[in-house]
């Protein structure tokens, strides 16, 4: 499993007063969040509360209306990678070429290829390197996307419901893979998810976004790998759901957990 050499530590992420308006619609009011280097934070919240918007801001795909994002020492999130809800693989490029998209262009051609193959092996798809993405299953495609996201050894990995479209079994398998790679590589991770169970299984902290701001910031101090039947997890899930539905009643919006 020591395929990628000298794993890099993650970068600290500091968000101060981040806001984003779309016209008159204020989606994010003011979000303050500090994620320690190498920490995994899960973000949950009702559909449409601005989770993807926040992640796109962190990835640099969108500019905040106000507030500041600091990654590591620099202002620009240069070493961040985002993994989308859809695999977004290039259908006309072989699996290995798709992973190569994530390898920095500064590396030599031969080095890029071997790096891509290394990562495919890491996600358990070494033998599919020369296939077209179109013939892979949904879970396999998402694993290729994960390999692509990790190819540049990002200091911050942003995951926007990457497992949302997968069936329950594949989901658990992918969660284990994610956890293993994260433990091994030590990057900082921000995981957006709809699934409270998933958040509690993977994250060091669970953050709830409600009405444009952080409504709950919960530390999950349980040893890994976490068994799903631990009573502490049930209690935490109860607290989060309660807060979610509270928000729904107060805001008069349909709850979705």
């Amino acid at each position: 499993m020591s395929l990628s050499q000298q794993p890099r530590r993650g970068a600290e992420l500091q968000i101060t007063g981040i806001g984003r308006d779309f016209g008159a619609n204020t989606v994010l009011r003011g979000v303050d969040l500090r994620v320690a280097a190498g920490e995994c934070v899960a973000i949950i919240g009702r559909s449409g509360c601005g989770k993807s918007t926040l992640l796109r801001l962190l990835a640099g795909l969108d500019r905040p209306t106000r507030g500041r994002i600091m990654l590591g020492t620099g202002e620009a999130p240069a070493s961040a990678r985002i993994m989308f809800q859809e695999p977004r693989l290039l259908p006309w490029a072989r699996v290995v070429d798709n992973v190569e998209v994530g390898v920095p262009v500064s590396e030599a051609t031969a080095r890029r290829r071997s790096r891509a193959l290394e990562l495919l092996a890491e996600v358990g798809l070494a033998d599919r390197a020369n296939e077209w993405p179109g013939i892979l299953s949904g879970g396999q495609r998402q694993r290729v996307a994960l390999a692509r996201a990790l190819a540049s050894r990002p200091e911050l990995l942003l995951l926007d419901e990457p497992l949302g479209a997968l069936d329950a079994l594949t989901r658990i398998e992918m969660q284990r893979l994610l956890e293993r790679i994260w433990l091994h590589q030590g990057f900082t991770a921000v995981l957006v998810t709809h699934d409270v169970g998933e958040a509690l299984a993977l994250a060091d902290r669970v953050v709830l976004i409600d009405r444009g701001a952080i409504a709950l910031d919960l530390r999950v101090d349980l040893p890994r790998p976490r068994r799903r039947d631990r009573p502490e997890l049930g209690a935490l899930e109860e607290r989060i759901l309660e807060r979610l539905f509270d928000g729904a009643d107060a805001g008069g919006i349909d709850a979705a957990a």
Partner: protein
Amino acid sequence: MTASTSSALPVEAQHHDIAERRDVPAWLEELRRWLIDAGIGWLLPIGLLAGWEAAAQLGLLPETILPAPSAVFLAAWALILKGELFVHIGVSGARALAGFVVGGLIGFGLGLANGLSAHSRKLTDTTLQMIRNVPHLALVPLVIIWFGIDEGAKLFLVALGVFFPIYVNTLLGILTVDPQLIEMGRAYGMSNATLFRRVLLPGALPSIFVGLRYGLGIMWLTLIVAETIAASSGLGYMAMQAREFLLVDVVVLAILIYALLGKLADSVARALERRCLQWHPSFRQG
């Protein structure tokens, strides 16, 4: 990397076992399948030809209306011996190709420019769409006034006819590339050139091929009309000459050659398409 070779090998070995057990060489099996595939398409034309020949031999088809295929074949042979046939084919082929290259390249270029740049699109697309609504063959009289019956006339008409399908489909292809993939490319730090080469162009390619094959059809159609109306060489000219001397067999011959050349061009385009779009589910083989 070692995992890839060790787990790929047993699969290939299995395939070999199956092929050998049946005692048929793989290439023979391939040939047989190809013959069946290609053969089915030719069954109907050959049947029609046989029926036509039989009808002519039985005197059901007067020679002055439709000569027998054998008569057409003999006419072709005579023209080959006189050295005329291939000259005409060559002249028509060169015209078709030249017009296609000129019109195709301009259409492709403008399609790309307008697909990639909203400014360019705003500036030119409306005009182009307006011109598109004029059937280009309506310009024949004007073109004859401008160019006479020179090569310029044919080149202009063919290029104009080929331009639009290629332009429209290239533009459409670029505009309909999945925006999520473009966003992914940007998020992964692709430069504009890389984004074009790895995302936009391959994404537009299926549509560009539709334009290419459509353009090839228009190319022959335009050339036939142009050569029939105003030319002093080429297949259309050969057919019009033959009509004046009531050589129906040569007229039919010209029509058949057009059909064969059209089919040839389409086959080449299809083969190219299959090669370039291997990744596409519609073109995936095996």
